[in-house]
């Protein structure tokens, strides 16, 4: 677990713009929170978690409210995953960020702010462990065990690893029927 308590962390911070000209989908982990993780001359900042050997291998980020607000760049989710995180826990998320996360299998868990604060306290110890049981929708860390809400449809997609485009293509007849009824001026 890694605590990142500040509110309103935007996707520009998660993955700065200079890394968005790449046409690949992989390899963004090394640029995660780049401006916070490096000094202006490109050296690692000693006090940021991505440079802390004790935090390497962490799989859960415990963030502040409105995490992932701002730009729609899915690169932010790719960077978080590529660095090694499987889940982000926060009091709330930017809407587009949350959709992007579900689409690529990064778990976003909303919990009340006071619970998130407790988790951040626990996470201040790099060796503290957290367990997320998506099936039962329970987060457990130390003495703390809390249930979380999760969209049933998204849960099924995450657990079963479904191909959303493939599933939608099975609705081809419905899409074609809808198209037949569209007004002429819509093209």
């Amino acid at each position, binding site marked *: 677990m890694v605590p990142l*308590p*500040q*509110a*309103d962390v*935007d996707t*520009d*911070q998660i993955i*700065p*713009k*200079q890394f*968005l*000209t*790449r*046409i*690949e*989908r992989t390899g963004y982990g090394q640029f995660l929170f780049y*401006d916070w993780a490096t000094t*202006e001359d490109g050296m690692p900042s000693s006090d940021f978690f991505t440079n802390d050997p004790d935090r390497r291998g962490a799989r859960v980020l415990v963030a*502040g*409210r*409105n995490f992932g*607000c*701002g*730009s*729609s*760049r*899915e*690169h932010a*989710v790719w960077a978080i995953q590529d660095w090694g995180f499987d889940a982000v826990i926060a009091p*709330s998320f*930017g*809407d*587009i960020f949350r*959709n*992007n996360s579900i*689409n*690529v299998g990064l778990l976003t868990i909303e919990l009340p*702010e006071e619970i998130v604060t407790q988790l951040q306290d626990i996470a201040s110890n790099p060796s503290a462990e957290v367990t997320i049981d998506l099936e039962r929708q329970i987060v457990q860390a130390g003495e703390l065990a809390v249930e979380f809400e999760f*969209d049933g*449809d998204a849960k099924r997609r995450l657990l079963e690893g479904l191909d*959303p*485009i*493939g599933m*939608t*293509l099975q*609705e081809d007849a*419905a*899409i074609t029927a*809808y*198209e037949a009824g*569209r*007004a*002429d*001026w*819509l*093209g």
Partner: protein
Amino acid sequence: MSGRTLFEKIWDDHVVTGNDPALLYVDLHLVHEVTSPQAFAGLDLAGRSVRRPDLTLATVDHAIPTTSRSLGIRDPQSKKQVDTLRQNTEKHGITFFGLDDPRQGIVHVVGPENGYTQPGKVIVCGDSHTSTHGAFGALAFGIGTSEVEHVLATQTLWQKRPKTMAVEFDGSLPTGVTSKDLILGMIAQLGVGGGQGHVIEYRGEAIRGLTMEERMTICNMSIEGGARAGMIAPDQTTFEYVDGRPKAPKGSDWDAAVEYWKSLVSDDDAVFDTTHHIDAAALEPHVSWGINPGQTAPISSSVPNPDAFADPVERDSVARALKYMALKPGTPFTEIAIDHVFLGSCTNGRIEDLRRAAEVVDGHKVADGVNAVVVPGSMQVKAQAEAEGLDAIFTAAGFSWREAGCSSCLAMNDDVIPSGERCASTSNRNFEGRQGRGARTHLLSPAMAAAAAVAGHLVDVREWS
């Protein structure tokens, strides 16, 4: 049964199947170079094709240079990204407004000015400022690259039904207060997360009095208040704007379209999940002082003190902002000196924005030491401005006059604000590092930005002569 909101009417008209989530049909998919390459690659990998290239429009805007087009793209990675989009559009038969096309520009400027954007449409794009198109009474929202791929392949998207929010702007806007101030003022009041999970409908007397371009500025920044989309019911102003544009319906189609569009208003007995009232008549010109668009205040006030905030998270956030922005509590905003002025972006890069700024600049000079730049939102905006002589006003004052693109709004190209320098910007985001690592952004209206360029510091444009 109660009536339906504008949002609900458009939603209902686009459900292909399902309820919540519903499979929504997409009428217009806008594509740009930065968030699409991985989506096209995904299609290729799965051996899929683009279902409706005729409902898809691509252009380049985010990472392209704003220097002379004849110089080409110097950065090899950006060049490759732009080339990739050109190849993808050729392969799939998608209309592409490339770098050499007179219709090229910021995707959210290009869509409306060519008549692609129309009332009642569902419009998506891999860009959060897609909310701009809601100004026409369309349901328009930003999506991620996985969703871009989904729309390319199926022309649809699975969507959870968002909540509805009405923001009523009571009274009319005072002189010197613009639609940018209206939206900044709203975000300052509701916060950057205030619209989360909602689609906002902007309503009230102050909204009805706005031009289409002013309405676009408001809907554009819906995402900065956390809302997925923002909308304004179409009216005569909307129809007049759309009429005659290249992709607008013609002849009997036009009549049928207008008849339908007139039904796109929230019914009197429609119920919104949330309603806010904002006194438009009491609004002042606004300027941002922090590192998110909610950290904004009236120009006549001063830099806030973190200690004045009761919520500890908010207090930390304000302290962090002041440190990044190098501002002292209590400093009047009008005493803040600036190094750069950026006039442009999908928020304020349209012809009316340039006219307003030119009015302020006319006959003046940019202050010593200030680097001021105008980046028209599209090549058509640029051509129009040049036909009106606005470029001459700007260049005579010492502004640099550029080619169209997103430019310093997100500084993916060379238009980077250096670390520690301060920029008065008509764009939409003042996030840390947004305009360049260590750069300090103050969001404001075009008239305010123009006045700041001449004065060399932030100015209350109501006192400008």
